[in-house]
């Protein structure tokens, strides 16, 4: 029987069983900030988003061009591999389907790459069909830099490390390329419902 610190509750977390909570997760009220490095500061005038790789003609948007694209407001549950989940988070973003409209590619995989050097990898089918957005507002407010602003990926059906902050672009690739955490113990796919946190899960 391991030691329990008498009277210690820890931060507010709700493990009450809910069919909305994936296994091993708890619900939080705040929005924890996790970071692997300094927060990039990208002035809007210098920001761009690109789609490159296995594509006939790479695409790119400046901030002004990006903000002219059709946007969606979505409400999603998000799940971090460090075990916290948040229900009903509100985002405004451009669907990846919009960004890939008309793109002809044989690529099966995608690498999300960010300002600051972070990368994460996914099958292309996990960012298409209404599953992924490039989000620039959280709860109706411009996305704060510590949460990934000016824009981040939002791929809520996977653990949140698959939603790269400070997104710079997507690279379409024929072969899967494990990203920053996938190279170092974190699961290559990351389905919270199958609790795919680490290698071998």
């Amino acid at each position, binding site marked *: 029987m391991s030691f329990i610190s008498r009277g210690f509750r820890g931060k507010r977390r709700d493990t009450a069983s809910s069919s909305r909570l994936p296994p091993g997760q708890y619900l939080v009220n705040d929005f924890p900030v996790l970071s692997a490095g*300094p927060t990039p500061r990208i002035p809007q005038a210098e920001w761009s988003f690109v789609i490159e790789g296995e594509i006939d003609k790479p695409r790119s948007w400046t901030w002004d061009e990006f903000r002219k694209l059709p946007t969606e407001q979505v409400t999603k549950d998000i799940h971090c591999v460090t075990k916290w989940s948040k229900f009903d988070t509100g985002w405004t973003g451009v669907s990846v389907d919009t960004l890939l409209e008309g793109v002809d590619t044989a690529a099966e995989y995608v690498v999300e790459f960010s300002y600051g050097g972070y990368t994460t990898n996914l099958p292309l089918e996990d960012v298409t069909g209404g599953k992924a957005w490039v989000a620039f507002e959280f709860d109706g407010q411009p996305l704060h830099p510590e949460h990934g602003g000016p824009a981040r990926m939002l791929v809520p059906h996977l653990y949140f490390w698959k939603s790269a902050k400070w997104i710079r672009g997507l690279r379409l690739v024929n072969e899967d390329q494990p990203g920053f*955490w996938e190279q170092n113990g974190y699961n290559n796919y990351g389905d919270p419902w199958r609790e795919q946190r680490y290698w071998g899960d």
Partner: protein
Amino acid sequence: MTAQQSDMKLDGNAIGGLLREIFAMEMTMAQGTCANCGKVHMVGEVVVYLHAPGVVVRCPSCDNVQMKIVQGRGKYWVDMSGVRCLEFSV
């Protein structure tokens, strides 16, 4: 530096316990040569981000990632590819 940035940024002292778990000895005085810029820093001085899905260690001179440490399922995954050479005495 903003409050948010500084909150996240620590130094090698903060992973003294973790490194001792992995190396079975005190490591904050070890000297690491950065694989990117070649500068040598004591582990006690490296930049450490603890609030991530894992620990990230960066070079204080060039900010390149020197180490990543992930713990889970009873294992450690340690990437030291950003350290060309680690010098320490037993």
